[in-house]
């Protein structure tokens, strides 16, 4: 079951692509933290990943950190292995951290169901937005910038006007 708005961010300590572990404390000081349940192999993730990089770059200077987490079962979906994560992040020039949740603990704690699925936490690491990045996998058809709007709100000290939207994408691949 998906976590409710206002819930604290999950504790985690996961390997990143640079060979170092990243924990929730690694992002202390960020004005907002965006966790994205993600993976490699899903066409919906692939459709949105450049937009996610753009958001990470656009908001970095305002203290936002974007962290994608891949929890998929790499045994049955080898395209989602740690090595494939490294390869894809390099090939696509990801502007966000990309962590490997091999035990699937973060996905379970988030109650994540889809990839991509976004969780935005404010400075106190309370969940203030959950759902989609925007309203269309086709970037030429986007009319609602849910994630950008949520970040603008939280950076302005306000609650997002839209705090929950349905995440559209592949299912999380559980073991």
């Amino acid at each position, binding site marked *: 079951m998906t976590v409710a708005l206002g819930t604290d961010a999950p504790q985690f300590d996961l390997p990143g692509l640079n060979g170092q572990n990243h924990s929730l404390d690694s992002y202390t000081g960020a004005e907002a933290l965006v966790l994205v349940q993600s993976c490699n*192999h*899903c*066409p*919906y993730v*692939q*459709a949105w990943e450049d937009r996610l990089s753009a958001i990470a770059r656009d908001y970095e200077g305002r203290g936002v950190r974007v962290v994608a987490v891949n929890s998929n079962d790499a045994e*049955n*979906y080898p395209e989602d292995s740690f090595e494939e994560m490294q390869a894809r992040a390099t090939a696509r020039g990801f502007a966000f951290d990309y962590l490997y949740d091999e035990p699937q603990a973060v996905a379970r704690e988030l109650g994540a169901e889809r990839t991509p699925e976004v969780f935005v936490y404010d400075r106190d690491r309370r969940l203030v937005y959950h759902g989609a990045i925007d309203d269309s*996998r086709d970037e030429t058809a986007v009319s609602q910038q849910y994630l950008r709007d949520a970040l603008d709100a939280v950076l302005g000290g306000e609650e997002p006007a839209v705090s929950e939207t349905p995440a*559209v*994408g*592949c*299912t999380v*691949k559980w073991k």
Partner: protein
Amino acid sequence: MRIDFLFWRGCPSHPEARELLDDVLAARGIEAEVVEQEVFSEEEARELAFPGSPTVRVDGRDVDPEGASARPALTCRIYYLPDGRSSPVPSRRQLEEALA
């Protein structure tokens, strides 16, 4: 002409793909028997050589022959648009070429 439209409900792309298929068929005035088949299990995916949802076969030939050989799985299938972007549904061009 027989068109097999295989899908897995866990991926949300099949309604869009079916709509696109129907649109291409109508635009070209093609009368075809479209047979929908839902895939429910990994075992069934293997039996059907189902590389992901949706999979469209025209008289037994996959509209994306290159992707047809991917490992069978209950997952969203990746298609590539003419500009190189990936997509969860076939491109209109792929469908048109398969139906030509």
